[in-house]
């Protein structure tokens, strides 16, 4: 990789040993992927994936402290993934609470470190930093140094920004330097699709299962999706964006997708159309039977596969304001249909703190409260990292949560049945 004189000087130690190691890491990372040079980050804000001061990540917290001690901070403000603990709004037993305190003993220290490094605010913990209420919304074509797989795939695909699937730490090093290596999804060639996905379902496919099927098939490649716009339209409405958020998160967690194009809908596809498809692209057709096959392939690792659910999580990635309203109305409706006043299973809906604050001003907030469901800013994945929580039969509408934890996945309609009847 060609470095400017200033970049080479940092690598040679002009700004100290720690900055030299940071530059060495980014250069070695770029060289691995054939980057030709380092280019400036042009987005206003960054996004970090690591929000949790979990004790097993102590080496990471120590690294953070060493950076701060050397006076090294991010060149841009950033948002960060959701908080791992919310004792007030998420059910937890006495023992579970003790385990949370032990697991996240570094949390207070790490929260403080994040603020000193450049966190935008104390309410800026969410995986959906691109929501209007949060305000970390990059423009089309802007260069980012983000991590968090669901946020990266959303920024690339739905917003048309440019970001590689960076790992945690790498994204922070980029924000510290103000530079990222130029390769992969930052380049025009890297955004072309070696896969065509033909959606041929009889009705709108469940976003979380469609994304799972695509991710499992294409792994880290870029898919060009045809036939989806007829179900979700040709405009990026709130509903379309929420659908793409959930579909994208499943492509990124069940596979390693960092960018997808939806014919006639997403910005790159609207601009360039099928010119984005590489010659000899492979084709994967998804119909009703394929979606069913994919969902039925998910293993159930509950000790008792027929156990009655003890907790339901809805919102991984965090829900949008529109999704919070829609779920509130849908849960209320299912309770009425089943002659219930409260949800049959303790239920937590998760969203960014500013989204929750906006939701509290709507009529649907009272509707949701009356169902007995609760609202939280927590990261459900981190909740399930508590070994005592992992033993519980937890159900979710999130394919990402299913992938990383013992939670069992259900489609939205199945989840409503569970909340109304208490059984699966």
């Amino acid at each position, binding site marked *: 990789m060609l470095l400017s004189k200033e970049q080479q000087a940092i690598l040679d130690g002009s700004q100290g040993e720690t900055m030299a190691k940071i530059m060495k890491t980014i250069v070695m990372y770029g060289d691995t992927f054939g980057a030709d040079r380092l280019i400036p980050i042009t987005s206003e804000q960054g996004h970090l994936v690591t929000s949790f001061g979990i004790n097993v990540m102590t080496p990471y917290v120590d690294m953070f402290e060493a950076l701060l001690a050397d006076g090294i901070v991010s060149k841009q403000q950033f948002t960060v993934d959701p908080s791992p603990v919310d004792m007030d709004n998420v059910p937890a037993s006495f023992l579970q609470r003790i385990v949370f305190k032990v697991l996240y003993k570094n949390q207070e220290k790490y929260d403080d470190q994040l603020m000193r490094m450049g966190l935008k605010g104390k309410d800026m913990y969410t995986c959906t930093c691109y929501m209007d209420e949060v305000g970390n919304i990059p423009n089309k074509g802007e260069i980012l140094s983000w991590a968090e797989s669901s946020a990266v795939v959303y920024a690339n695909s739905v917003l048309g920004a440019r970001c590689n699937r960076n*790992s945690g730490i790498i994204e922070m090093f980029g924000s510290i330097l103000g530079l990222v290596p130029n390769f992969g999804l930052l380049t025009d060639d890297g955004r072309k699709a070696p896969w065509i996905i033909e959606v041929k379902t009889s009705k709108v496919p469940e976003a979380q299962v469609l994304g799972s099927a695509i991710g499992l098939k294409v792994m880290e490649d870029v898919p060009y999706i045809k036939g989806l716009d007829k179900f979700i339209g040709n405009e990026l409405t709130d509903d379309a964006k929420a659908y793409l958020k959930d579909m994208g998160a499943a492509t990124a967690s069940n596979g390693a997708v960092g960018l997808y194009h939806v014919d006639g809908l997403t910005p790159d596809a609207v601009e360039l159309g099928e010119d984005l498809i590489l010659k000899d692209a492979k084709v994967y057709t998804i119909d009703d039977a394929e979606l069913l096959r994919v969902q039925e392939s998910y293993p159930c690792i509950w000790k008792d596969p027929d156990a009655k659910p003890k907790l339901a999580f809805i919102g991984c990635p965090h829900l949008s304001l529109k999704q919070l309203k829609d779920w509130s109305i849908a849960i209320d409706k299912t309770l009425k249909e089943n002659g219930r006043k409260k949800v049959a299973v303790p239920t937590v809906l998760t969203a960014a703190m500013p989204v929750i604050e906006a939701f509290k001003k709507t009529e649907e907030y009272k509707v949701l409260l009356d169902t007995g469901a609760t609202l939280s800013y927590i990261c459900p994945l981190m909740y399930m990292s508590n070994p005592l929580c992992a033993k519980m039969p937890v159900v979710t509408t999130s394919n990402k949560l299913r992938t990383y934890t013992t939670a069992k996945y259900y489609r939205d309609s199945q989840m409503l049945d569970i909340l109304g009847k208490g059984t699966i």
Partner: protein
Amino acid sequence: MREFKGRVVVPGTATAEALVSKQGFNTLASFKKALLAKKLDAPCSDQNNEDIYQKNMAKKALCLPQTIGSTTGGIVIYCASKMGASPACLLFSESIDSLAAAGAILSDIWTDAEMPTVDRLGQDFLDYVKDGMTINIKEDGLVEVE
């Protein structure tokens, strides 16, 4: 014995027993329980990976196509290296992905662990190598499997 030539991502030599994941290796899902419980033998906790689920990953020659999943992947490998629970080496049949590369490079520059990493070994390598075979890695990216 067969030899396979790959590209060196992180230089070094190693001799270790092979552990093979034919499918994409989900780093967070695989290491999560080991990191949480501080299990230095690092049993794989990814229930979706039937090739290596519950098998020990530490000190093994981890053979895989690529890694998949959460972008905490690099931090997870870095923390496993700091904890002393990292594989002896990482061997990729395909080009290494950005998360695994981050983990391998962070381990190399920011820890004392030695985890040579070689990619582009080809599908032949992944078809041939089996759990328990002995792997020798040379400095130039030559991988001997016996």
